[in-house]
């Protein structure tokens, strides 16, 4: 099962490779990893999406906590969270297709961030399902390039079922 882990780390040299090395060294699967500084100086937040059964995820969480520069680890599978990722898609867009592409972009509340004679670059934000859907829909026009962030996530303020 897929788990989104939110990992607060001391932003010191080598911390990324400690985390990445833990996954590769112990044979854990990592789907995406996103790192960026937080508001607190010297602290970064990593959002890791990993696969595995319960016992593997338990080991991943424990092993992450064991790393000295790791401050906290939260598993957002047990907590309600907002999760988003972003994708940039460069799509073939000759005149005949352009209107249809723009309509899809509109439905998905995406933004066109770059235009040329026969291409559109579209920015789309959403959870992984939405990203999958738009990639799917636009692929028939021919996606020339794709750049995706990993997942980022925050705990929801109200934990309502």
């Amino acid at each position: 099962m897929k788990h989104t882990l939110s990992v607060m780390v001391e932003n010191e040299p080598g911390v990324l490779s400690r985390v990445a090395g833990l996954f590769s060294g112990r044979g854990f699967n990592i789907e995406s990893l996103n790192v960026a500084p937080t508001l607190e100086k010297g602290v970064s937040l990593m959002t890791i999406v990993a696969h595995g059964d319960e016992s593997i995820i338990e080991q991943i969480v424990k092993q992450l906590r064991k790393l000295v520069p790791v401050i906290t680890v939260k598993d957002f599978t047990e907590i309600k969270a907002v999760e988003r990722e972003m994708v940039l898609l460069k799509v073939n867009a000759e005149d005949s297709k352009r209107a249809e592409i723009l309509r899809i972009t509109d439905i998905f509340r995406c933004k066109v961030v770059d235009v040329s004679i026969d291409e559109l670059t579209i920015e789309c934000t959403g959870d992984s399902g939405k990203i999958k859907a738009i990639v799917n829909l636009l692929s028939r026009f021919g996606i020339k390039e794709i750049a995706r962030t990993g997942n980022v996530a925050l705990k929801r303020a109200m934990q309502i079922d």
Partner: protein
Amino acid sequence: MELTGAQILLKCLEEEGVDVVFGFPGGAVIDIYDAIPNSSIEHILVRHEQGAIHAADGYARATGKAGVCLVTSGPGATNTVTGIATAYMDSIPVVIFTGQVPTPLIGNDAFQEVDIVGITRSCTKHNYLVQDVRDLARTVKQAFYLARTGRPGPVLVDLPKDVVNQKCTFDYPESISLRSYNPHLKPHIGQIRKVAGLIRNAERPLIYSGGGVISSKSHEELRWLAREMKIPVTSTLMGLGAYPGDDEELWLGMLGMHGTYSANMAVHNCDLLLAVGARFDDRVTGKISEFAPYATIVHIDVDPTSIQKNVSVHVPLVADCKSALSALQKELKAVKDEVNWQRKHEQWLEQIAEWGRLHPLNYIDDEEKIKPQYVVEKIYEITKGDAIVCTEVGQNQMWAAQFYKVKEPNTFLTSGGLGTMGYGFPAAMGAQRAFPDKLVVNIAGDGSIQMNIQEMMTVVCNKLPVKIVILNNGYLGMVRQWQELFYKKNYCSTCMEAQPDFVRLAEAYGAAGYRITEKKDVEKVLREAFAVDKPVIVDVRVAQEENVYPMVPAGASLTEMLLV
């Protein structure tokens, strides 16, 4: 007053109570070496950096203190990697200082540059590259703190040459607190009560103790629990000595692949298994799905990652073994006299004794050939079990573990997790430095002793009278045993056809050398060798194709033992 980084480093070591450093100099650490004579630190010059790290490890295991190793950049640093991994697998507190090229050159493939922090990231508890002399003292303090606390382990500090030369005022932090590092030491009292309840109700309890009991110095608490509640004890290789090996009533010997019949049968049949400071290694459990099938398993360990890693346990208890066992003791003291434990466990203990009688730890002795087990028994008799014994890895190690009845913690030093051939001799060197007046014996094989034989010069030069007993069977015996049993005797590359003359080798280094070829000479010559006041090699020509039994084939259940 401002001090150089080198001076600061040595001051830090003094503050940490370090009296000896094992090392080897080089360009990147020459400034540190320049400052050593003006400090109280003794430096022992090894002949290879692997010797330095194992010696620091042996020193740490024998004393329970942190061992320290100092080497130069590049090859000096990479030569310590095996030793670092050895210490990491066995949770031994060692602090390694490596030289590094000057910071402006880092990343330029400079002479003798390696990214040792990158290389050792997965085999250290933590490691540091110090980039500013003002961070040095705090980093060293943290390194020792991390190495010693929680689940101990090796910590490496990489010191660029320019940092060591920069100056700043020396201010040693009194204490350290890291918000991201808080070892869980105190046990959960609810869990403790649960365990106490389980002990009260168990009919067939068994203690399975590991290296954690030794590193947390909780052998007294463990002994109390076993003796007062009449609970039999088995142990991992790493845990030998926590419970006295000469206690015939409750001690079952080691468990696992080369464990005793009674220990493995007891694990299989117990209804309560108390795992204390052990981590359910595959060499211990055999086939996981058939491990302790009837038992409620309690697992006490300071490292949460050890719990539920290999075996799913019923009562996890994350805590330092000492505080957990003390809390358990407190809880049990209240009810201790309500139960006649001897009577409660009589049937169980009788069953265990029966297994012991059925298949005791044994070997078929020979009139003429010297059996390696016989040699280990003689070492035990002569030393009365009071020596510090180190082992290499392989058959020598298993025979030592089986036939030398380790009585006290910190007196049996062996590479358990990593299984590092070449560990025993330099570790013995470190232990001998820590205890100059104690008899330190390295039980070796003819294969592994050659992996760090160069340290003969170090022990001779530093008057460390380590006694090396080579169980010389002319084979890489453990691999040969596997080839015999599972590979149709295809003895590929395990026969040591060509060997040095170990006696003359010892003499060439200025040590004493003995050879034993006749069984009748074993005791006499060993006694003589142990009485010599300098390093000794005793080359004992033992039966060549002797196997270690019992043996649980890899992947088999603990009850499927091959016996003598």
